[in-house]
């Protein structure tokens, strides 16, 4: 797969700490790429380097094979985590100004803004001052301004903060649509549920280092821990003693009226078919499922491990 953006050995050091330590990430074209990590991991530093707001101390970034260049800013749309608008300026005026900074002509910006404002139901706010708007409204305007010039690369840093669930869904739909139209999207968030929902690939950064990178599904597979959930209808009365004979570890059980739910862990040598066969005598099996770790689990597992090893040192 051809990488749209290649981050190569990027290092950034601030006075007393290393924000990024030889981080290399390949971001494929036309995908939603999740940039994950705990607070202070270096995500924002990396994003600022991609936006050429700051320069790396060493390493380089290639956009479609070219070293980052001042002209590339018009190809990038960036929605920072810390974002705002000029409070005393009118909404429409300001949106046009910001669009023109990205190289659009005034008439083009005006035309496209009307379309977007209509879509987000904020057209009648055009001549209002920003300070009269609610926070959610302002966020909508910022989103529109970010995507207006149809950038090839979109960078969203915590895009959903400050939105109500209805608008979060609206935004998610728009982000997916933008990808389908060909944009490459970098998506930075703490919200793992939205990562699973949206991202095709992720990279996990912790303490300035990349600790994990790959496709979401592959990562889940790779991090499987051989746990299963099984449900029985009318289980045999001695299911507990039967279970003890099997090479499984019981993580939890739940027996309500005639239904038994089991949460099991096996070892890697036992494949699921064999396990299934072993389970059949225990009762009428109604459900059998392997539990893959959620991105949340992977995040906590990876970050927690390094945090622990760091504190052990």
């Amino acid at each position: 797969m051809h990488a749209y953006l290649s981050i190569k050995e990027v290092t950034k050091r601030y006075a007393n700490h290393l924000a990024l330590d030889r981080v290399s990430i390949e971001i494929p074209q036309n995908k939603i790429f999740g940039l994950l990590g705990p607070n202070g991991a270096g995500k924002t530093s990396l994003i600022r380097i991609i936006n050429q707001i700051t320069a790396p101390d060493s390493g380089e970034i290639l956009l479609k094979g070219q070293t980052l260049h001042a002209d590339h800013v018009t190809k990038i749309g960036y929605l920072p985590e810390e974002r705002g608008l000029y409070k005393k300026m009118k909404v429409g005026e300001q949106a046009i100004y910001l669009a023109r900074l990205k190289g659009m002509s005034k008439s083009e910006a005006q035309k496209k803004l009307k379309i977007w404002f209509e879509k987000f139901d904020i057209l009648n706010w055009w001549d209002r001052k920003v300070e009269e708007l609610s926070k959610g409204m302002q966020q909508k305007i910022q989103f529109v301004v970010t995507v207006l010039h149809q950038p090839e690369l979109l960078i969203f840093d915590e895009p959903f903060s400050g939105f109500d669930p209805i608008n979060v869904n609206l935004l998610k739909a728009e982000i997916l649509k933008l990808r389908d139209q060909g944009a490459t999207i970098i998506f930075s968030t703490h919200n793992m549920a939205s990562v699973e929902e949206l991202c095709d690939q992720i990279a996990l950064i912790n303490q300035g280092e990349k600790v994990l990178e790959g496709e979401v599904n592959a990562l889940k597979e790779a991090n499987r821990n051989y746990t299963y959930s099984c449900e029985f209808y009318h289980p045999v009365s001695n299911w507990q003693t039967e279970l003890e004979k099997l090479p499984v570890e019981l993580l939890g059980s739940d027996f309500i009226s005639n239904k038994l739910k089991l949460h099991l862990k096996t070892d890697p040598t036992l494949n699921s078919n064999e396990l299934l066969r072993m389970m059949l005598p225990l009762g009428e099996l109604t459900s059998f499922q392997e539990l893959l770790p959620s991105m949340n689990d992977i995040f906590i597992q990876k970050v927690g491990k390094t945090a622990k090893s760091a504190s052990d040192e």
Partner: protein
Amino acid sequence: MTFLGPLLMAALMIVPIVLATMQNIGEKNIAVLDETNWFIGKFEQDDNMQFHYVFDAVDSLKKQVLQEKYDLLVYIPRPELNIPVNAEIYSDRQIPLNVSSYIKNTMRKEVETKKLLASGIDPDVIKSAKTTINLVTIRLDEDGGETKSFTEINVALGLFGSILIYFFIFIFGSQVMRGIIEEKTSRIVEVIISSVKPFELMMGKITGIALVGLTQFLLWVVLTGSIYGVFMLIYGVAEAPQVLTTESAMTSPAESMLPEMNNEALTEIIEVVDAINFPVIIGSFIFYFLGGYLLYAALFAAIGSAVDNEADTQQFMLPVSIPLILGLVVSNFIVNNPEGSLAFWLSIIPFTSPVVMMVRIPFGVAYGELALSMALLVCGFLFTTWIAAKIYRTGILMYGKKPGYKELWKWLRY
């Protein structure tokens, strides 16, 4: 503020003139009871004062004052010695200062004349002995030319220019600072610097506000000038056509209150005004105006970028304002000795030169010195801009911590 400013400025110049002419307090009926007979007929009538010489008992005259027959009563009692030096004024209300001083002066002159005559001196001799010295200072040029100079005008021009520069730097410099704090606190700054370089944003802010400032300033000058001009035209024609001058704003109020000038003095002033090197003064005013602004605006920008709100600017504002204030304070001494070494050094150092050099220029400054000062000012603002750009770049993305000087020093080296 754009339109209110000129109104206020014009009011500042017009109100004193109006007040001065408002001393016309209406006619006063004054009864004079002179028991000495020295001053009969000596008080002269004018528009304001009507003198009636009366011979009546003091008490009945006091009653007449209360009955409004007279506005006031001047009572000059017979002196115990032979020279009358005491007088009393009675009135049922506050006595205007100009009336009482007129009476006092007239009496004094009369007594003095009588004393002179008594000792055998003709008062006309004294009068003719009074002399006005007409001192003209003339500067000699190296190439043998001579120019008349008029120190008062030079002082006024110099101080006016330097005060103007001082205010311009402070007003618009802090506007730059506030603009940057606003961009920072509204969090729009990161959106913008993903499109333009931080340096471009900072310089854009500085030049933008400079242009706003110049426009506003020109508007002020033009509007103030025209409001004042129109006022003088209407008011001046009605009140005092002979003192009507639409000269530059600073000299007018004082000048128009002067009594009529004789032709000699007038031609002399014209000569002096001609001798002022306006191209140099105006040219260097604009240069120091802009140079000083650019130098300080960069520093103000750096301060704005380093803090989160205006309250935190205090600790950095002080060292930035001190050279400016110093320049202004020292200007008042420099006008007395524009060639001194204090004047020289302060007009060379870029941080004080915009304010101090303006004071010196009307007195004439060697071109070499001027060039050195200007070159250093250019270096100065390039230097502060370079420093400011480094602090700004880091500062605008720093939130929630109040940096000290140590922190700023670190940012400089990023």
